[in-house]
């Protein structure tokens, strides 16, 4: 496989960062410092990950190192989800459970049914794409469900007061949250190939893979992301319902974000 970008190429591409910073300076946006810091930080992080991945994926290295990498990604993604939606209670543990469930489902299909061979070189990027792409949907589902139950508390309690169990009383709001969280991913999937060329495919083509081969990989990745977002959001929603209602079917107090 060719690797068309060398260190010199990378250095030249910094010109593009200079263009962005230059526009900020020209239009007095006051963002040029942030642009330079962001670019430097991203580059440093990517290089660090590159070095770490080189170690993890080097020939002869045990695949357990790759599994360890996946576990670390799960933990880190869960922490990011918690930070992005601080008003959703118990999101850290729920996100961890939801990513783990999605990993079992998606990696089980892709590796268990031999779509990809199970090696460090396939496991790490596939798990990364699965977690990275379902994180937004996870945060969206958690936030939306919490908002729905807080804002429509009267309606939820009216259902409980009619003798509905909490799971049944929450069902309309769970459906609304899941729809809201899954719709963007469905829209993205529909537009793939027409409106934009997705990252995995672009990367493969740039690295010299035949376009059709790149398309097949991308299609699998897309389906992986669809299954992962559906799994993570449903686990988050059902898990949240268990936490937001008491065993005797009462809705717990949900503070508004301003109360935090």
């Amino acid at each position, binding site marked *: 496989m060719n690797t068309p970008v060398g260190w010199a190429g990378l250095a030249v591409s910094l010109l593009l960062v200079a263009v962005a910073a230059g526009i900020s300076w020209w239009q007095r946006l006051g963002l040029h410092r942030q642009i330079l810091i962001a670019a430097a930080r991203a580059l440093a992080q990517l290089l660090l990950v590159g070095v770490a991945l080189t170690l993890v994926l080097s020939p002869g290295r045990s695949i357990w190192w790759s599994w360890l990498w996946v576990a670390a990604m799960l933990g880190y993604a869960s922490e990011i989800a918690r930070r992005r939606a601080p008003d959703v209670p118990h999101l850290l543990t729920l996100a961890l459970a939801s990513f783990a469930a999605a990993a079992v489902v998606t990696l089980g299909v892709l590796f268990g049914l031999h779509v990809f061979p199970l090696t460090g070189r396939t496991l790490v990027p596939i798990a990364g794409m699965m977690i990275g792409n379902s994180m937004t949907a996870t945060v969206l589902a958690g936030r939306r469900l919490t908002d729905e139950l807080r804002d429509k508390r*009267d*309606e939820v*309690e*009216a*259902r*409980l*007061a*009619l*003798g*509905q*169990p909490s799971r049944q009383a929450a069902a*309309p709001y769970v459906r609304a949250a899941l729809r809201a969280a899954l719709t963007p991913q469905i829209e993205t999937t529909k537009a793939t190939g027409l409106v934009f060329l997705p990252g995995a495919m672009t990367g493969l083509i740039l690295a010299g893979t035949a376009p059709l081969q790149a398309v097949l990989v991308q299609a699998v990745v897309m389906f992986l992301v669809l299954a992962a977002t559906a799994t993570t959001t449903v686990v988050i929603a059902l898990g949240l319902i268990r936490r937001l209602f008491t065993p*005797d*079917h*009462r809705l717990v107090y949900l503070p508004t974000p301003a109360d935090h």
Partner: protein
Amino acid sequence: MDQRQTVAFELERVIVLRSGRLLLDEVTARIPAPGITVVTGPSGAGKTTLLRLLNRLEVPDGGRVCYHGQPLDELDPLTLRRRVGMVFQRPTPFPGSVADNLAVARPDAGTGELGTALERVALDPGLLGQEARTLSGGELQRMCLARTLVTGPETLLLDEPTSALDDQPKRVFESTARDLAAQDITIIWVTHDTAQAARVADRIYQLRHGHLTGTPAGEARP
């Protein structure tokens, strides 16, 4: 008749704390059945909280609530809530038609039963197919009452159900409630409207400073 059989709810030294504040301070009371018991008191006195304790939408921080002699925490909350229905201060229509709303309370109920429920609250059964959110405020609140009646409750908890209504729909609601009380449904009605309390009550309790004081207004009306 055993005295206990005439007591719907019995509260023993019930305490409710909210953000460190004592909202209900060792409330001890007996709420008899049947008839309409009105609980009055200034806003923030804890009237709604008291009502919510009775069908376990909330639980006390101390003390005990019994329904017909049985402690609430020993009763299945879902069964309790069907025996003790509640109508909230603001009407809470669910999406869909009036029939859809009533069916939430009992999905297996036939159109005839749903129509009868509407008639019991002085609404035209012809409204069943109408979008619930298009009803007037008074109609909407009575639809919520009908929805509660579909579960076949013995007791109704009414939390300021007419506070957002004009005088005429308010009077219709009061008359409907009196009709239901005449059908042996026990009603516990929270209101800050003392004139309304005088119109509908068989007995009136006042909730002030976390204490419930009772001034029974005579025996239950025949």
